[in-house]
């Protein structure tokens, strides 16, 4: 099940980051050392680390503020804010885990999933909690939300760059591997490449 999910994410992300579909999660390369370049991104890793550290504080303060102002909200906004909070909490956990593990181990499906989650789900939801006046944002709400949004934006920009670098590196590796095939090699990768 996770394999089909990875394939779907990779094929969708290939539209945005060309070269990404060349990614093969194989550790062995038949004894050929194809470069020791580190392709994880430092600013992305730092912002993810600090986001993970900051997340519990944001959670506690947001829940306390919500419980304090719950009576003052209209019934529609009560439902809306609680739903959005549940979504944001779950998506944030998933997103931070994917980004942290993906960047550290240079695993592209996790990184792509993290970036998609950030852009499509997290950005609108956080902006809604920050900007909409009907949720009665208090100064503390605004400050915490602003810090989260700043970290989110940093992750979006650096994540895009990191994903592009990693995809390009994998594409280069694939090209080099094709030229360095040993004719008698019987490893999985060489057999597959020879059959293409």
């Amino acid at each position, binding site marked *: 099940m996770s394999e089909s999910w990875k394939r779907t994410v990779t094929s969708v992300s290939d539209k945005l980051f060309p070269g990404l579909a060349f990614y093969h999660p194989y550790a062995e390369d038949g004894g050929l050392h194809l470069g020791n370049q580190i392709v994880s991104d430092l600013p992305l890793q*730092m912002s993810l*680390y*600090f986001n993970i*550290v*900051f997340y519990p*504080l944001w959670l506690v303060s947001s829940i306390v503020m919500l419980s304090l102002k719950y009576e003052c909200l209209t019934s529609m906004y009560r439902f809306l804010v609680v739903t959005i909070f549940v979504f944001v909490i779950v998506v944030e956990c998933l997103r931070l885990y994917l980004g942290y593990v993906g960047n550290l181990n240079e695993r592209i499906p996790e990184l792509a999933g993290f970036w998609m989650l950030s852009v499509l789900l997290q950005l609108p939801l956080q902006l809604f909690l920050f900007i909409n006046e009907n949720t009665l944002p208090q*100064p*503390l709400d605004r*400050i*915490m939300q602003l*810090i989260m949004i700043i970290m989110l934006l940093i992750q979006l920009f650096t994540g895009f760059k990191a994903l592009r670098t990693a995809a390009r590196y994998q594409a280069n590796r694939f090209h080099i591997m094709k030229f360095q095939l040993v004719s008698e090699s019987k490893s999985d990768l060489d057999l597959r490449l020879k059959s293409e």
Partner: protein
Amino acid sequence: MRMVLFSHGLVPTRFLIILSHLSIAVLILWSRDQNVKSCLSLDYTDEEYLLQDKELVIGLSIALGLLGFELLGFLSGVTMFVPLTAMISIACHGSASILLTYFVLDEWDCHLYWWLFTFCSVLPAVTEAVTILRSLFLKN
């Protein structure tokens, strides 16, 4: 090597404490009406109000500026792994956060803020600047 051993607890602590000081300072800046009123005597004129208001705004803004400078030095990595700076920073900003919370909730007098400012905003910024200068000049 020693610094890496310290970094597992010190770095996130310092980051969170700086952020907490930042948020409480911005909070006071945002809703400072009640605090300014508590600085003045019961029958105050508009000029006195504006004067106290301006003083508090200037104090808080300079504190925020020094905080931003320290955060910059921290996040750029120059002072991230220096344990002494981290300890001073944590102690000062921690006490600043707690005392500023009392400042807001108990409606302290305005001139007490300047004591807070000296010990808890200027001191970490100075140690930060000294550390940055040391790392710049001792490397060469």
